[in-house]
């Protein structure tokens, strides 16, 4: 057993971290928000040039042919800086959906363009409040009808992968049958849209029964992103209390603060360990993936939630200002907490992955 990232993976993480720290400091995020930008397009181009967008995609489709764990390392670094790029939409969900369920022709056409960054895809599954069932759109005879909302990154995407019941379909967004309406996004660095399909031309991804696997694989990547965000919050909170003086001594010297941040650190380490296992299992032990992904998902959201909240808390009043940096993560965490289904949904998936304990939620 060797349960650590390889030296190459550590180098990949360092490379990504170095680039992202330079390109996307917090003031840059503030500028993006103030200018109403849809995304950080130059950063996206650069990530494409570096090969990061195709880390786990086979070389025949323009990727680097690395593992899910390598992709996880990149997700973690993107989470750390709260980058404003459609990585989760276009790569983790849409490209993976095409890879899992697309025909050879669809893979050959779209994967190289997605991993170069030339084409951006969004992934449309939610249909308003409540659980994600994909029931309210209809796909028949090559035409898609109905509404998906909200859909992240739909403003900049050229194509959408749409969940229609148990099927996945591919839709070109620049067509008469598609209407995009921008929504107010709680995560100010990830715009969301409503998509109305009025008999839009669409094509089926022919693979069936892949949605569950797609969700599991995405949950592992979301866990890595949450771990990266959690680590950033812990570092920020720790650095702030180390500097701040209160009642004649360092704020960091108070046990109430130390214990709070120690608990944050424990949560992150446990979540990271689950994410590592999920990343490993996604490639090397796929039978374990459903349980591993659900455990990673549950523990990562719990850890990031605690980190984001307590980071703002230890900052005190300054944490409530736009000039401080806590809010980026405080908002992003809520988005990650709901993007693939909530806690109850993943609790069910974890329990259902245990032998002999299948039950249904009341």
């Amino acid at each position, binding site marked *: *057993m*060797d*349960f*650590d*990232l*390889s030296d190459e*993976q550590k180098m990949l993480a360092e490379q990504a971290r170095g680039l992202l720290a330079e390109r996307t400091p917090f003031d840059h995020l503030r500028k993006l928000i103030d200018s109403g930008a849809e995304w950080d397009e130059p950063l996206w181009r650069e990530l494409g040039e570096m090969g990061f967008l195709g880390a786990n995609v086979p070389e025949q489709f323009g990727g680097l042919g690395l593992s899910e*764990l390598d992709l996880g390392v990149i997700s973690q670094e993107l989470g750390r800086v709260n980058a404003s790029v459609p990585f989760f939409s276009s790569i983790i969900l849409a490209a993976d959906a095409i890879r899992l369920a697309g025909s050879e022709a669809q893979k050959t056409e779209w994967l190289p363009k997605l991993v170069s960054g030339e084409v951006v895809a969004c992934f449309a599954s939610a249909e308003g409040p409540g659980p994600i069932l994909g029931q309210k759109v209809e796909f028949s005879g090559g035409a898609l009808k109905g509404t998906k909302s909200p859909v992240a990154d739909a403003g900049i995407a050229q194509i959408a992968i749409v969940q229609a019941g148990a099927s996945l379909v591919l839709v070109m967004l620049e067509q008469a049958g598609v209407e995009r309406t921008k929504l107010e996004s709680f995560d100010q660095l990830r715009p969301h849209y409503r998509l109305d399909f009025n008999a839009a031309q669409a094509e089926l991804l022919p693979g069936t029964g892949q949605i569950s696997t797609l969700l599991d694989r995405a949950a592992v990547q979301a866990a890595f992103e949450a771990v990266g965000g959690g680590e950033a919050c*812990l570092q920020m909170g*720790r650095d702030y*209390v*180390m500097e701040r003086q209160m009642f004649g001594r*360092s704020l*960091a*010297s108070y*046990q109430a*603060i*130390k*214990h709070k*941040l*120690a*608990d944050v*650190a*424990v949560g992150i*380490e*446990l*979540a*990271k*360990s*689950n994410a*590592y*296992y999920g*990343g*490993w*299992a996604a490639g*090397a*032990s796929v039978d374990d993936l459903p*349980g*591993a992904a*659900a*455990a*990673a998902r*549950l*523990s990562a959201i*719990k850890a990031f939630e605690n980190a984001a909240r307590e980071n703002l808390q230890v900052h005190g009043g300054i944490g409530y200002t736009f000039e401080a940096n806590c809010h980026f993560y405080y908002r992003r965490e809520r988005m990650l907490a709901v993007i693939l289904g909530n*806690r*109850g949904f*993943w*609790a*069910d998936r*974890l*329990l259902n992955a*245990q032998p*002999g*304990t*299948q*039950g*249904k*939620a*009341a």
Partner: protein
Amino acid sequence: MDFNDTPQEAAFRVEARTWLAAHAPAHELQPGVTIPDTEEAARGRAWMRELYEGGWSGLTFSKALGGRGLSGAEAVVFSEEEGRYHLPKGPFTSIGTGMALPVIAKHGNDEQRALYVEPTLKGDLTWCQLFSEPAAGSDLAALRTKAVRTDDGSGDWIVNGQKVWSSWAHLTDWGILVVRTDASVPKHKGLTFFVVDMKTPGIETRPIRQISGASEFNETFLTDVRIPDANRIGAVGEGWACCMTVLMGERLGSGAHRSGVEPLLDYAAKTPAAHGGTMLDDRAVRQQLAEALAEEQGERFFQARLRTMVSKGENPGALAGMVKLAYASRYQKVSGLGMELRGLDAIAPEAGDTFTPDLQYDYIYSTVMRIAGGADEVLRNQIAERVLGMPGEVRMDKDVPFEQLK
């Protein structure tokens, strides 16, 4: 990264499994049956003897010391395989192998290593820990048990004081003992480490009546106990460093237990609920069990990361404390939840109920898991200070000679 065994580990696992299949069943305890502590200790020794004769005792100790000179990874493989059997293992043997031997191996001299290591690996010598005192628990260095050198030229030491929480002190052969030998220097600097034969005149152990109803812990009174200087481990004044070696063994050894989520899942899945279905259909129950299970899995993989660090020669330091910190609270929560699922029966089960008494015991015993081997609060301090680099606690007594402290 590879969670699976290496070819070498896999071969070792087969070897271990084969040997255990032939030798472990005869030593197994019957689940749910309580046996007297004297018998438990005797069976513990017998299992140690079996392990030693089969070449499975002291796996990580050098061959020169009577061990097998293997890596930590292989020791983990063996303990996983051994854990499949319900064997008489407990503090009566693990204090020896996990605490006494590491400190003797590291701080002792060749003569001491020859005297104590192999007999302990054979089960001939068992050990208790004489560290904590009524006024020195988390603040161990505040201990007051005193050793004074005799002036008769023998070099012997005379020890007086009181120790507490010494597991199995009434049934073990020897103790590891830390005492104050110099009160004129600050508290950490005046300590010295000894091994002591528990049959030495002047040692009296009294069982502590615990909230679990059991009495595996003791108070140990030392009155004019004469200890030869040859029993001193390390230099005079080196006691604190020895304690740190012991406590590191305690940290790395703790928390390798399951917190009881899986039996509870099985129970909930099989038990009808009031309004049809099973208890596992209940949303609140599902949520709590799933969160605990996710944490338990994370802890298992975190331990795998720690073991990987150790196998690469890195020291996990205070990171290791995270395991017990998370485990102990989860153990308390899960056993508490188990009692709720059991209903009022959890308070007064009928005779013959073999499930509820375990839940009750776990709920009671989980309290000591949060205190022993580094209390939650101590571990949080250590994580904050050593992992996050935050300031240490204010230590009013740090540079003050011990005798001047109030």
